[in-house]
């Protein structure tokens, strides 16, 4: 049996046991509490998982039972996740930003027996719907603040369950190990509910084998080491964050850090200065526009230096990407620029030590990518689906080609279907949708996973994703258009937060644009344009002119057929609560086209 084969036989709890044995008192997690970073060693991590696992068991958790976890990222989230898996259960992550209706759907559909909630906010959601959840037996609360007066029999504290588990462990010390040993690689480990730009979320079941096999192939492309540290920022219920914050440390032993709160994230990031960063385009866009706007208020010298050096940084980055020799002179200038501009900038952003930056979940605009490469941060775009356990393709080393997502990682068999759809096959293809045979059959045919994405391989074998198959527009003249690329070009403007391209069966393309409130408000103040709300700002003719200029700039870079002829500014920010965005902040095109139908019609009159 080869070593690789052996890895596939492993389960996540077994990997965890191995890391604990190997690393013992080394730091596994850090959490900022009371203004200080508190270290949690692998041994402590193990104790928490063990106690909570045994506690769950004593409450009646059986193999195959579902347990949901609802709350912001924290060490307890990971303890609970691993504990459930150690007990042979299946853990289900729920977005903490979900409304109670969305929470009810997932708890009900997954038939969760237990739910672990972070705090009062989340507990209140569950208490509101508990009567509609006949399967629900117990809710464990991590942070009891504001809940001490609640006397609902459903409620237990996280600590209490751990206490029970501790007593059980003292009685039968071998029990936990036996439980871990009875986990099997083809057992389902977690269910990840996809955010679903269309229809209700679907629960993708991922087995231990899916997870361990994707880990093996991932490490061949991006080797994460024990010395690496990551800050857990994105929601843990998303497969990519779970991969980085839970799965990867189980193999590499790297350290995961938890920020104190969302408000302190920027400062905490700067303190930790992580070496690996998993991010999404939205965050990178936000950083870029924050830097652009802040530079306007910067000291004239700083401002001058920034505007002089940024193009040089980008030129060097571009030459490096094209594998050209960078001239000695340029290299010297870049070194100066790095020393005086890029380094302090990256330090301020908390990105100084980042050696690998992976962006996923949505396509990243080329201009944003160039900006970060310019300041020396080699952002890589990865591509994957929940259904393929997170990663399908990712650039290897510094072989980054802007606009592509690199080559498929080892372990995947793949082909492009006749209609351009990417198909994949391999041990990391998910087990199926939970309680939805029909949907499973639609995406899994003869062992192939139908990704639903259109893409192509270039001459060097790099994969270029065109768009979601469902979102390709066909204009009245029969031209196929991938809207996301144009949308990303528009979103590069610091004044445009969201753009939705319209044009299916229409003579030309138009766009619904949502302005970036902070940046446009800032601009309006400089121009002394009075406004009161988002609405009044969107209605202002000067603002319209500003956006027109931005659209014109984008049009220059687009082919004539892709140009945007008309646009309209949305008078309200797109919101998750209005079903306009998914939990991962992706636009729900269908919903928006329906909702703003009148507005769209006006664009074609």
């Amino acid at each position: 049996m080869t070593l690789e084969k052996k890895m596939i036989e492993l389960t996540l709890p077994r990997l965890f046991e191995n890391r604990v044995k190997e690393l013992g008192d080394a730091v596994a997690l850090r959490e900022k509490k009371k203004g200080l970073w508190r270290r949690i060693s692998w041994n402590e991590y193990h104790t928490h998982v063990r106690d909570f696992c045994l506690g769950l068991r004593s409450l009646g958790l059986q193999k195959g039972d579902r347990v949901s976890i609802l709350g912001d990222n924290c060490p307890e989230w990971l303890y609970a996740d691993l504990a459930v898996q150690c007990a042979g259960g299946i853990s289900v992550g729920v977005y903490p930003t979900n409304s109670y209706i969305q929470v009810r759907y997932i708890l009900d559909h997954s038939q969760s027996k237990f739910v672990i909630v972070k705090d009062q906010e989340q507990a209140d959601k569950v208490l509101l719907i508990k009567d509609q959840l006949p399967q629900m037996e117990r809710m464990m609360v991590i942070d009891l603040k504001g809940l001490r007066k609640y006397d609902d029999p459903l409620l237990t504290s996280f600590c209490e369950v751990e206490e029970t588990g501790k007593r059980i462990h003292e009685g039968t010390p071998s029990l936990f190990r036996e439980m871990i040993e009875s986990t099997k690689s083809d057992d389902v480990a977690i269910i990840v509910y996809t955010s679903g730009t269309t229809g209700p979320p679907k629960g993708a079941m991922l087995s231990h084998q899916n997870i361990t096999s994707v880990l093996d192939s991932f490490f061949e492309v991006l080797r994460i080491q024990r010395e690496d540290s990551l800050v857990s920022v994105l929601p843990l219920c998303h497969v990519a964050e779970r991969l980085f914050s839970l799965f990867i440390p189980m193999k590499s032993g790297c350290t995961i850090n938890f920020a104190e709160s969302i408000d302190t994230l920027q400062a905490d990031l700067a303190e930790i200065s992580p070496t690996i960063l998993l991010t999404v385009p939205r965050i990178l866009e936000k950083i870029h526009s924050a830097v652009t706007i802040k530079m306007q208020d910067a000291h004239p010298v700083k401002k001058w230096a920034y505007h002089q050096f940024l193009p040089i940084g980008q030129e060097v980055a571009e030459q490096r990407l094209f594998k050209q020799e960078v001239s000695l002179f340029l290299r010297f200038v870049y070194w100066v620029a790095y020393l005086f501009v890029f380094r302090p900038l990256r330090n301020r952003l908390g990105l100084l030590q980042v050696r690998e930056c992976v962006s996923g979940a949505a396509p990243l605009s080329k201009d944003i990518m160039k900006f970060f490469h310019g300041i020396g941060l080699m952002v890589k775009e990865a591509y994957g689906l929940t259904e393929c356990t997170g990663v399908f393709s990712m650039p290897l080393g510094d072989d980054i080609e802007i606009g592509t997502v690199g080559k498929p990682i080892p372990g995947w068999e793949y082909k492009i279907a006749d209609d351009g759809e990417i198909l994949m096959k391999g041990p990391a293809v998910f087990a199926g949708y939970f309680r939805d045979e029909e949907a499973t059959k639609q995406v899994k045919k003869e062992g192939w996973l139908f990704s639903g994405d259109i893409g192509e391989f270039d001459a060097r074998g790099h994969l270029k994703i065109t768009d979601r198959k469902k979102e390709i527009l066909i204009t009245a003249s029969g031209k196929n258009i991938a809207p996301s690329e144009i949308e990303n070009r528009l979103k590069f403007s610091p004044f445009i937060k969201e753009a939705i391209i319209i044009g299916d069966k229409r003579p030309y393309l138009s766009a619904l644009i949502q302005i970036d409130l902070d940046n446009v408000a800032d601009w309006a103040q400089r121009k002394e344009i009075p406004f009161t709300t988002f609405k009044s700002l969107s209605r202002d003719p000067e603002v319209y002119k500003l956006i027109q200029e931005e659209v014109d700039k984008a049009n220059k870079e687009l082919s004539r057929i892709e140009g945007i002829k008309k646009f309209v500014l949305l008078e309200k920010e797109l919101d998750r609560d209005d079903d306009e965005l998914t939990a991962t902040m992706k636009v729900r095109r269908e919903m928006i086209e329906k909702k703003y139908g009148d507005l769209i019609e006006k664009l074609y009159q």
Partner: protein
Amino acid sequence: MPRLEIIDLNIHFGGIRALNGVSFSIEDHQLFGLIGPNGAGKTTILNIINGVYPPSSGRLCLDGQDMIGLKPHQIAKMGVARTFQNIELFKNMTVIDNLMLGRHQFIQSGILAGSFYLGKCLNEEMINRDRVEEIIEFLEIEAYRKKVVRMLPFGIQKRVELGRALSMDPKILLLDEPCSGMNTEETEDMARFILDIKEEMGVSIMMIEHNMEVVMDIADRICVINFGIKIAEGNPKQIQSDPRVIKAYLGEDE
């Protein structure tokens, strides 16, 4: 025994009778609302409890212990903390420093030990800082910890002031218009914090507030005063339907 007992309190400034025989008592774990039109004498009551003004006559007891004649710092030491109508913080100091000042009464070591910052003094600082950090977490002001108070938004300054009062580990907390000047969201946050303080920390709270929605929503018991005279006392429901209260607030048809 009630936590705070006020019996027949009178005060006059020259010829003006600011308070005329006001009596009420606040129980343990109670959120007591004090309302009344402008100039009714609400803040004067707080100032008397604090020891800023000596009353002309009347009795004032905290846990049965007489408070009349004590100095403000002695009263603070007994466990009475307060926030003010207009924020009273050290504006050029950080949030942490302001909150640590609230712990002043718990710090034993003197100026000499403090300047060397050794042994017992360091230990004391750590214990007190720990409590301050708990309060910071409780009030969710982690992001402002090291910021200078002057630079903070008004709503956050109000929260810091509440934190400064809480860091005294009070038995009773006097809040003078905690929600004034706040927008709806800030008001809601503040109301939630006040409720949490009552429930989590077991502190009795006396609150003056003009935002009737907030008072009626969160107070356990309300006392209404007008022109220095108590005109009604009861739970929010009773107060809302009390004709004297309606008269005091809306005036009377001639």
